[in-house]
């Protein structure tokens, strides 16, 4: 069946800002789909509010709308574009839910638009557990005993019947949001209330626990002729009880016999037929009893998913791309297998290697939250390792986490860390083996399948024998490398210097070989340049065609950013991917190196050659040697590659763009402040202290408030603003581990209430282009990644903006930047202070590029390559020509971390960003809030609790709220202030004043908006409950006066303006 003739124009929905459970895997799938449909000659209209994505790059689709993924906006877009169809299966649960709303509200019908890939019936079957279970009954598939409850009382009753432990699964939430495991009745009552609240339909499935069962996932596809294929089987290392996104997973499955596997496959087929998935990808999760082999169905998603991205990277089969083509009417046999180019896409990939995925967590950023894993996903990223054996691939995945170059770091044995799944459990399991705990005991504590444990035990056995080596010998060393041990690990175990290990290894001729990921285990010839390294072959495999001598183009190696984490995410992938095209235009062959399976950069289609490898010195050096690369690029993948630049240059490799010295000038505080001094640029007064007595002395000179941070950190780790000696002492006590003589604490004078801006530049040898200035909405003190921002600046005076540009260009020149420079500046009383310089592409680059239309990444590449002003013609790029206003919104994962505080501060904790574009500031703000999942109330009660210094400033705002029909309620002090200012206001108790207090009020659901500004450690702790209850009940809570003002502007805009949309 060929392509449908009735479809010429399609809308692809993205997934919005990155949140836990819905991350850049949907950028990968959407980008892939866009490319493929554009290739088929269709008009593709892309809608996504996330500016950090590659898919929102204007080159990816026919037209790109960076607009909120909400019905009114889609209504406008459909009206304007008049597309034939929408494909809702590529943008995660967000896109599916939106499609369902568009259908239910008659918007699709109104514009005569059809849904492709999944219709409302299918979406409901996948998401509504009751319907799904009805279908399972029809085909005779089993599932855990459970009950769907709609009230608290019904829930309690169901709990009594099913017995504990119990799993709670709210309907229609993503990443298992609001769900969890309850081990006791008390725990159950708390979680039930929350889960009912979380589900948009107030439905919660209360389910019998299958803790300890083996867990599997099948990634399947179907076309409209009914052909069915399994793309990948995935087995979870962590048994049932841990969300699959938080589990270590392995592909292909390892512990099922063929019969067990094929029976599961049969059932998967029946399920997607029963659900009615006509075309596309789906994933189905199963639990299998470890002894009896009994099989239960856990859930299914009728769309591409995080796992399908992983499966695509694990097998080389581009699920999203094929899904898009199937939606357009093709059948699997009509589509060619991209990898082999000779066989059809209608087959099941065969793997001759093992893939391990390990999630990356961020518990350290959310103090107070217990590091325990359950059915609610908490990880913020993942790394994947490909190796010929589980041991090799497991080790690679561990190295990709960037915890330590030596891999499995040592921890202190702790039995509870085995029994309760947690983010660090794998290290405790390894430690248990080291400490002689038996496999049987570890199995009984963890329920992890003994086959997996045996592999780990073999790694530890190898570790023990390495420790006994007196010197390096070829055969044992080869064996160790085949077990995945890094040179750093071998060095640590033997005490032999790492450089010596590397040199000896090479002298034995031991370097890895590279194999192709070819979808067919070598059965057919394949040319696709997707590689992984292994020590299970000769170092010189034939015919990989990656060296300059093979294709005549100079090779450069582009270093990616590894697993996503808070502070280093998809924004850097945007820079990497976008740069590839420019490097290619400039005549280069680009070898991409990265370990993150979710990204576009690890699509084999993106670069000239993809090396799926840990982002470590050793792996990069091997790839550089293997490809005979001319140089490597460290400026695009964030801080990780920058940190690796120095050791690689020491090994003799050539770094592209800014030299190591230039990087140091920017990153070394001492050198940088010298340069600022020379240029007459102000910096906040600062100093360093390696212990508390030095710190107290320094504080006297600087004066409070002071910003404290350890040296060399990313994303503001451990940064705090301290306001008194007492707080300073507390800071030093709680960060003792990160502060030392070698790594002193940096203490900066904190510019209170200063306006902060981000500036990104691209620089060449004789030119510099300012990409734009982002004015932060929150005042100084909130991490730049967590603060909202606006382009062009709204409060900055024009002459100050010009001054900022001049200072930035001066600094870039003086530092000797070739490529990218990001500057963070603060403006106080019209004085410009430089806070920080990052000699690389930054988090704000994609936002700036999309706001101002300056092709910042392309320019950075030209700068790195040393192109002259006469070639680049920098004068043609003027960010100030931009029309309209763009606001950056941010989203936070506080909901997933039940004990965490949502107050904003110098440590970054947001997972993603969104963009609101409007004709004016108010409209852009409104869109930015809406698309960051803020509920903007129309009316209702506003609860106020303000610190003294904000009161006068916020008075006009409070008056306006009242004028907008909001009623006010405040804590005693604030209420008194308001009364004195002539504003009537109800009073509510503070938490320590007894019940009912403000938190009770918020939890009762009566409050529509909270403004809670506070500072100082004690008051922050005291007001925790206010913020937490807002997070739990999804009530907007503003903790900064500037943010509150912005929110008011958005509220006003909501009341007065029309919905309007425009493409980039």
């Amino acid at each position: 069946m060929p392509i449908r003739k009735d479809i010429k124009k399609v809308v692809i929905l993205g997934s919005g800002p990155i949140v836990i459970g819905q991350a850049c895997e949907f950028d990968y799938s959407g980008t892939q789909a866009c490319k493929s449909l554009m290739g088929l000659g269709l008009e593709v209209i892309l809608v996504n509010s996330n500016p950090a994505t590659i898919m929102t790059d204007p080159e990816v689709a026919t037209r790109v709308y960076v607009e909120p993924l909400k019905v009114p906006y889609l209504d406008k877009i459909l009206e304007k574009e008049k597309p034939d169809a929408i494909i809702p299966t590529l943008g995660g649960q967000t896109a599916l839910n939106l499609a369902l709303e568009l259908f239910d509200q008659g918007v699709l019908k109104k514009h005569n638009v059809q849904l492709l890939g999944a219709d409302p019936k299918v979406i409901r079957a996948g998401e509504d557990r009751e319907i799904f279970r009805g279908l399972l009954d029809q085909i005779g598939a089993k599932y855990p005993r459970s009950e769907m409850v709609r009230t608290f009382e019904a829930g309690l009753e169901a709990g009594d019947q099913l017995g504990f432990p119990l799993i709670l699964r709210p309907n229609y939430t993503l990443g298992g949001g609001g769900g969890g495991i309850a081990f006791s009745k008390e725990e159950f009552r708390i979680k039930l209330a929350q889960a009912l609240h979380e589900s948009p339909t107030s439905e919660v499935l209360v389910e019998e626990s299958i803790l300890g069962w083996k867990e599997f996932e099948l990634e399947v596809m179907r076309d409209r002729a009914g052909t069915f294929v399994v793309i990948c089987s995935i087995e979870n290392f962590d048994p049932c009880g841990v969300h699959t996104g938080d589990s270590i997973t392995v592909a292909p499955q390892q512990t099922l016999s063929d019969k067990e596997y094929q029976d599961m496959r049969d059932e998967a087929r029946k399920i997607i037929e029963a659900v009615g998935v006509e075309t596309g990808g789906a994933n189905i999760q199963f639990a299998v009893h470890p002894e009896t082999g009994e099989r239960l169905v856990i859930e299914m998603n009728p769309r591409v998913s995080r796992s399908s991205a992983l499966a695509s990277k694990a097998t080389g089969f581009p699920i999203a791309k094929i899904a898009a083509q199937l939606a357009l009417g093709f059948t699997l046999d009509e589509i060619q297998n991209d990898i082999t180019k000779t066989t059809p896409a209608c087959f099941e990939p065969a793997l001759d290697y093992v893939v391990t995925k390990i999630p990356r967590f961020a518990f350290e950023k959310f103090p107070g939250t217990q590091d325990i894993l359950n059915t609610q996903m908490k990880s913020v990223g993942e790394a994947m390792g490909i190796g010929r054996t589980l041991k090799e691939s497991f080790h690679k995945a561990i190295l990709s986490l960037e915890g330590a170059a030596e891999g499995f770091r040592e921890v202190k044995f702790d039995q509870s860390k085995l029994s309760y799944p947690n983010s660090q459990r794998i290290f405790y399991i390894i430690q248990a083996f080291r400490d002689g705990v038996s496999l049987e005991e570890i199995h009984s504590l963890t329920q992890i399948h003994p086959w997996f444990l045996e592999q780990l035990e073999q790694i530890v056995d190898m570790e023990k024998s390495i420790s006994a080596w007196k010197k390096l010998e070829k055969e044992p060393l080869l064996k160790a490398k085949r077990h995945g041990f890094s040179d750093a690990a071998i060095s640590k175990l033997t005490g032999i210097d790492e450089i010596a290990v590397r040199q000896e290894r090479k002298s034995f001729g031991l370097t890895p070989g590279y194999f192709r990921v070819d979808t067919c285990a070598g059965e057919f010839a394949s040319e696709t340049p997707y590689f992984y390294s292994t020590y299970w072959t000769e170092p010189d495999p034939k015919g990989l065609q990656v060296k300059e001598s093979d294709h005549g183009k100079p090779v450069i190696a582009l270093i990616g950013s590894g697993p996503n984490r808070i502070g280093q995410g998809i924004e850097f992938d945007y820079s990497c991917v976008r740069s590839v095209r420019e490097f290619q235009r400039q005549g280069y062959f680009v070898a991409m190196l990265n370990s993150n399976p979710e990204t576009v950069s690890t699509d084999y289609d993106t670069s000239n050659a993809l090396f799926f490898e840990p982002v470590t010195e050793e792996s990069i050096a091997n790839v550089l040697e293997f490809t005979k690369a001319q140089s490597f690029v460290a400026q695009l993948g964030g801080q990780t590659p920058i940190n690796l630049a120095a050791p690689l240059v020491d090994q003799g490799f050539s770094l592209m763009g800014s030299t190591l010295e230039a990087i140091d000038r920017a990153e070394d505080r001492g050198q940088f402040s010298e340069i600022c001094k020379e240029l007459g640029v102000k910096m906040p007064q600062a100093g360093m202290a390696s212990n508390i007595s030095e710190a107290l002395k320094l504080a006297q000179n600087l004066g409070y408030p002071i910003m404290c941070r350890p040296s060399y950190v990313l994303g503001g780790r451990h940064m705090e603003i301290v306001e008194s000696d007492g707080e300073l002492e507390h800071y030093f006590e709680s960060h003792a581990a990160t502060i030392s003589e070698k790594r002193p604490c940096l203490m900066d004078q904190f510019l209170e209430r200063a306006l902060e801006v981000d500036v990104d530049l691209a620089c060449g040898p004789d030119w510099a282009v300012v990409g734009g200035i982002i004015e932060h909405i929150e005042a100084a003190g909130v991490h730049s990644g967590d603060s909202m921002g606006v382009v062009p600046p709204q409060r900055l005076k024009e002459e100050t903006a010009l001054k900022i540009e001049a200072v930035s260009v001066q600094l870039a020149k003086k530092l000797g930047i070739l490529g990218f420079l990001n500057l963070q500046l603060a403006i106080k009383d019209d004085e410009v202070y430089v806070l920080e310089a990052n000699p690389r592409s930054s988090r704000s680059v994609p936002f700036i590029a999309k706001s101002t239309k300056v092709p910042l990444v392309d320019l950075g590449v030209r700068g790195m390559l040393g192109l002259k002003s006469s070639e680049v013609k920098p004068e043609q790029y003027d960010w100030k020509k931009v029309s309209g206003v763009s606001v950056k919104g941010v989203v936070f994962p506080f909901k997933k971390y039940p004990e965490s505080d949502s107050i904003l501060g110098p440590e970054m904790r947001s997972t993603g960003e969104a963009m609101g574009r409007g004709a004016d500031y108010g409209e852009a703000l409104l869109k930015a809030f809406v698309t960051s999942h803020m509920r903007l109330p129309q009316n209702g009660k506003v609860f106020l609790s303000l610190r003294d210094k904000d009161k006068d400033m916020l008075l006009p705002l409070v008056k306006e709220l009242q004028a907008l029909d909001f009623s006010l309620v405040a804590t005693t002090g604030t209420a008194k202030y308001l009364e004195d200012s002539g504003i009537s206001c109800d009073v509510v108790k503070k938490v320590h004043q007894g019940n009912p207090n403000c938190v009770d009020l918020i939890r009762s659901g009566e409050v529509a908006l909270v403004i809670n500004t506070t500072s100082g450690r004690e008051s922050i702790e005291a007001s925790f409950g206010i913020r937490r209850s807002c997070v739990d009940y999804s009530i907007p809570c503003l903790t900064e006066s500037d943010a509150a003002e912005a929110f008011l502007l958005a509220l006003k805009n909501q009341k007065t303006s029309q919905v309007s949309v425009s493409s980039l």
Partner: protein
Amino acid sequence: MNTKLGFVVLESGECFPGQWHGGPSKAGELVFNTSHSGYEEMATDPSYYSQILITTASQQGNYGEKDEDKESEQIWIHGFVCLELQNSKRDHAWREKLLQSQVPIVTEVDTRSLTLELREKGTTWGALVEAQNKSEAIELAKSLIAEEKRKDLDWAHRVSTKEVVSLQGENPQGPKVCVIDFGCKKNIIRELRSRCSEVILVPSRFEEQQVRDLDPQGILLSNGPGNPEDVQVAAESLRGLLGWRPVFGICMGHQILGRALGAKTFKLKYGHRGANHPIKDDLLSQIYMTSQNHGYAVEEQSLPKNVKVTHRNLNDGTVAGIEAQDQKAFSVQFHPESHPGPHDSVALFDYFVKQIQ
């Protein structure tokens, strides 16, 4: 810990070193299979007679050894090669089983490079040998290969039942079916028994009249090892039976039907061995994934006019099934009985029974 050196030696003299686990050095045809699971089914499938099995999936033996996974009562392969083999205190059943059955094992072999080599060369003779070094290995392999090649080439006859075996079916209303055994997998029998009243297994060299004497309602030609040209008697016997009763051929049985209809068979450059081969089925109007294990195929041009190509391998377009409608005979090159592999094409057994009724 056993650290003896073992080698996979190709007839051309190429050598892939690895670790030797035991068993006698042995020669055979070197074949790879890309299935992720199903090592026991493969090794006990008589179609693998005299073949050295190289699994491309790198870790084998992970789930031990189970009675229900056996496709016959013995292990037929002449050797087992993989990257890593399960061998722990807890579970080493599969390794033990192979060694007890005198099947040599070599592990820690660069099986991917070996597979690429075999893919380019086509299926070739080779040997698994225990040796001190490469030259010794090549010497030993040479003589083993020569010896193995001298043996009777009618492999089907060697693995076939020697006597007539009658098995009661589970469906009293179903037909009585005769299976000509070229090396029949247990699961073919299971699938038939669940649909038939009686299943009679007969030797590969059964004559036409002997079959007629049993008076079955349908005839199934089983899978089996080797070159169809070397299978004696069967094609001639079958020629006389065509049109008398419905016939269903599987794998070797398909090739025998082709030959009986007057077509030629030839050796494929790239054999098909795996559980992921797409087939377009015009009989059932479906496309599905199949389990395959064959080195020979029916030549399309040589098929008589009245024979339709009903199944095609979508990877290389080769004939994967034929039907001679007027003679009520059809056959497929793949394994509808699976084991190992997807169960997608099991409906062909129903089609066969429908032909009879």
